């Protein structure tokens, strides 16, 4: 395979992330930085979820558990143990990965809707447990002391830094997604997605491959969780484990096209863009959730392969560029 072939699929995704980072500076509006951060976070989370959902074919309805769990671990270490943001993020990502490894060993045996249900159960059990866990502040959660930001040049500078880190994590998630997609490991995952039994007969060690896919899809959400709650200033059970946000991630992946590197990125742009528009529009503001729901339904019913799938179907020429 020629070298440029291997990387052509990365061009658009990387450009998209770069455009997001440039956006607030080009427009000069600080508010855009917050919007851009929201989209970067969505890109990172959706691209991570795609490794499990799009490549491996396992529908995780509770993927946000890794974001919340990692976030809690990181914020706890930041406050109670006075760790630096960097170390806390690493710890958050690592513990989320370990959680995914242990969980994966158990629940990845389940297939189809049973797996989806189990992930919901795990998320809810975790939320309920943290709610009772005094070390993490129980129902009130953990609030960062304002002085924490001093080490990062004050609150304003800390926000700015968080934005860059968010961009870095989004880029990392996209790179990881691309590496998995173009690797031998990824080929095994795709085989599992298409037909797990046939894949095993061909020698794919499905239990291990699935577990590692789960782990890889959990690490960056854990890091993003730490970053977000650091920026946010506090973490509570309801913000950390919102089932709703989990499903929004599925929507983004589906919207753009599951199983492709670019799909979740497009989906994150489209979904967050649409939400941003609906929430601020005078006409749709009150029923924005219903409008989103109706749009989602239309997509599920009429273009289930997502935007990328639809395009690839129409224009086979661009198949490789949109891998």
């Amino acid at each position: 395979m020629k070298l440029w072939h291997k990387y052509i699929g990365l061009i658009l995704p990387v450009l998209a992330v770069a455009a997001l980072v440039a956006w607030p500076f080009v427009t000069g509006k600080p508010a855009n930085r917050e919007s851009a951060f929201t989209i970067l976070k969505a890109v990172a989370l959706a691209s991570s979820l795609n490794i499990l959902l799009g490549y491996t074919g396992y529908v995780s309805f509770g993927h946000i558990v890794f974001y919340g769990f990692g976030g809690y671990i990181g914020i706890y270490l930041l406050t109670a143990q006075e760790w630096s943001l960097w170390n806390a993020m690493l710890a958050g990502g690592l513990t989320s990965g370990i959680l995914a490894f242990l969980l994966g060993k158990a629940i990845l045996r389940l297939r189809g809707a049973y797996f989806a249900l189990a992930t919901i159960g795990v998320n809810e059990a975790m939320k309920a447990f943290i709610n009772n866990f005094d070390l993490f502040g129980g129902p009130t959660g953990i609030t960062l002391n304002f002085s924490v930001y001093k080490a990062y040049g004050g609150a304003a500078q800390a926000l700015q830094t968080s934005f860059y880190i968010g961009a870095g994590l989004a880029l990392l998630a996209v790179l990881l997604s691309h590496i998995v997609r173009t690797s031998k490991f990824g080929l095994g995952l795709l085989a599992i997605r298409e037909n797990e039994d046939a894949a095993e007969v061909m020698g794919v060690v499905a239990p291990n491959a699935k577990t590692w896919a789960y782990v890889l899809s959990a690490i960056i959400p854990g890091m993003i969780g730490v970053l977000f709650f650091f920026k946010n200033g506090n973490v509570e059970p309801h913000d950390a484990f919102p089932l709703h946000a989990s499903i929004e991630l599925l929507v983004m992946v589906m919207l753009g096209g599951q199983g492709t590197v670019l799909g979740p990125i497009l989906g994150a742009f489209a979904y967050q863009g649409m939400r941003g528009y609906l929430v601020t529009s005078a006409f749709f503001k009150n029923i924005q959730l219903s409008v989103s729901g109706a749009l989602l339904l239309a997509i599920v019913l009429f273009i289930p392969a997502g935007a990328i799938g639809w395009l690839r179907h129409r224009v086979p020429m661009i198949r490789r560029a949109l891998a």
Partner: protein
Amino acid sequence: MTILLSLQGVSKRFGGLQALSNVTFDLPEGQILGLIGPNGAGKTTLFNAINGVYPPEEGRVIFRDKDVTRSKPYDHARMGMARTHQIVQPLNELTVRENVMVGACFGHENQHLGNAARIADEVLEFVGLASRVDQLAGSLNVAQKKRLEMARALAAHPYLLLLDEVLAGLNSSEIDGMIQTVLKIREQGVTIIMIEHVMKAVMNVSDRIIVLDYGQQIAEGSPEEIAKDEKVIEAYLGDPKLAEQLLEEE
């Protein structure tokens, strides 16, 4: 003569049905073993027992001097066993080449992607699917999907190849092509067990034949011996057309 595969008293039940009882044979390297019997005789079940899809309750499966009775299908694949499915199982949303690369990557040679792509192209050329490498596997017709099954299995460069009715549903010129392919595979030193209903083909290519009926091994021998075996003819009497085909071979 080295024994590649050895089955010792393999038995398997599904609820009240004794699908396999006490199947025992040794398969020397380089042979083609034909596995025949009426529908429901347990042929595919035997394949599933051999490659770990449904491990047998009793008996042992020895492959390359290792007991693989309780091993998973992927362990078998990685040890050099490959199979095709009676009901084709293409990875629909992957291209034909990618399908075959899975076989090469995860089979016993454990190839990396670059080599796997090269092997895939060779194997697809060999089975006559070279013009379809970039097509999605789901878009192939049934005969092509059967060839794809074969290509995926071959790409692993297995020691033992289990072929489950690769001729079913093919027309006579396709059958001749497939038989040539099977013989060429054997020339490369691959040992083969084939389940087949097309008697002419089994009788022509097999070195040895085992007949299963209701999970029992009712006969075993060279094609000539099998064609004369009373028990075999009796077993097939319920299936007059097959019995006729069988007798024609005498």
